[in-house]
């Protein structure tokens, strides 16, 4: 017990909490795109993390092989995933809008394996590193915070802020919020829902590209990187209330703190176990998610 109390009041625990917060920023960004698309188009992009993977490859090849500065490569990565978002909607989702949810899941799940397999054939299975390090912020003798994680947190929080302003202050944003509640009424108010779906898919793709740029700074890219982030992103969205962007944002921080605190007291893997146990318990108590709106 004394050992636990010592650990709890240790300076390293504070570092753990801050790292959890920073990890939460990236997870929040990941969940934002998926939630936005689900909230508006009503289809879960199970292949969302694979779009991020292709964005990471784009950034890697442009920066490492073509020698393009990493900022420009990141911009190109975002452009590529934006186009991919549009294509996923136009080629797959568009034809499944009125299909049963299971068919939509199977289709986007099939796309996941298609993208994963294609990446494996095209790029091989080796792990590739961008080789960019931003160093660490030395807070005190004992606390080091990764600049990459701080950057990720700031950009994720900034994206959430920009998206919030867009959704709450513009007519397009109001239409997006409205269509997530009643998709049948909007055309009768003059809204072209097809264009709105395309725009939302493009924004979802762009957010995947931004996540790709931030993940490429911290993780190796390989064809299966999506498996590391896809399931956890989906669980965050479900825990926050699928389609609820604010809920997903908050759930990302709950998840990230559980992972890092679990990792602090045991191994990182136990941190994931703790987070998943809490997720499962949440599903028993509030299957609609912690922050689901009353309908």
């Amino acid at each position, binding site marked *: 017990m004394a050992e636990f109390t010592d650990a709890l009041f240790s300076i390293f625990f504070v570092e753990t909490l801050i790292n959890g917060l920073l990890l939460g920023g990236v997870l929040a960004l990941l969940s934002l795109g998926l939630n936005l698309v689900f909230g508006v188009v009503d289809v879960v992009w199970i292949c969302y993390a694979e779009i991020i993977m292709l964005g990471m490859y784009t950034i890697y090849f442009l920066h490492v092989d073509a020698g393009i500065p990493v900022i420009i490569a990141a911009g190109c990565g975002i452009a590529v995933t934006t186009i991919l978002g549009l294509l996923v909607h136009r080629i797959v989702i568009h034809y499944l809008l009125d299909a049963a949810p299971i068919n939509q899941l199977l289709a986007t799940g099939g796309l996941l394996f298609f993208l994963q397999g294609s990446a494996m054939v095209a790029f091989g299975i080796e792990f590739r590193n961008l080789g960019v390090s931003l160093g660490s912020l030395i807070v005190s003798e004992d606390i080091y915070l990764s600049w990459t994680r701080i950057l990720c947190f700031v950009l994720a929080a900034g994206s959430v802020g920009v998206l919030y302003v867009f959704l709450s202050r513009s007519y397009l944003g109001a*239409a997006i919020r*409205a269509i997530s509640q009643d998709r049948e009424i909007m055309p*009768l108010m003059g809204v*072209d829902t097809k264009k709105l779906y395309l725009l939302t898919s493009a924004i979802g793709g762009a957010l995947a590209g931004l996540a790709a740029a931030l993940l490429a700074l911290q993780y190796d890219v390989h064809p299966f990187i999506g498996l590391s982030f896809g399931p956890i992103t989906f669980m965050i969205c479900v825990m926050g209330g699928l389609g609820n962007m604010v809920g997903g944002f908050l759930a990302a921080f709950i998840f990230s703190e559980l992972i890092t605190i679990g990792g602090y007291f045991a191994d990182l893997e136990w941190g994931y176990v703790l987070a998943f146990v809490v997720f499962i318990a949440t599903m028993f108590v509030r299957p609609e998610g912690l922050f689901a709106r009353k309908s």
Partner: protein
Amino acid sequence: MLEVTGLTKHFGGFTAVNNVDFNLDKGEILGLIGPNGSGKSTIFNMLSGTLVPNAGSVRLNGREIGGAPPHKICRMGVGRTFQIPRPIRRLSILENAALAGYYGHSGVATREEAWRNAAEGLALVGLPTDPYSTVDTLGAAGLKKLELAKALATKPDLLLADESLGGLDHSEMDQAADMLRNIREELGVTIIWVEHIMGVLMRVVDRVMVLDHGEKIAEGKPQDVAADPKVIEVYLGSDADEVAAAAAR
């Protein structure tokens, strides 16, 4: 301003609307009545674009709108209300109407025009035009008014009013009926009104069209239709005298 010819809709082997013709002049109010399942909603759905006709033509101000997608039909000048109000609860009352005002009328409104369209629609039905009032503060009558305000904010030439009196008490019904008359008189909007409460409808409309099993069985002035034996047989029944008295007023 509206010419409907040969309008037909099948659902599999079932014919919901069969070869229906009617015309409307600008500023006219047409009552569309008939028993449940007679095809009134199907006609509304075809006029507003949520259903594509199997045959026939719908021309609004000389332009064919039959079969066009609903957002285009709305932008060409058709506004619609619903029997069960469908407000966007995440948005305020003003935002609900402003969204319709922004996208509805030809889809090119400016931000200021949208607010103006919304404020005009809300003021006409007597709802608050401040940006803070929420939909949750509205009762049954308020929600019906919001339906009308949203449709009016699209600046329609033709308004499709679907059972605007359902769920209202007697004084609210009279207010709603007066409101439809005001909309016609102040804005010059042409109205098709589906309603089951005949006593009120007959006092307001210029003309009545009666449907049964997807076919038009009568059309004419309210007092003539109320006295039509076929209409009495299939729809009015024991209420015929009361309806005829209302039509004569």
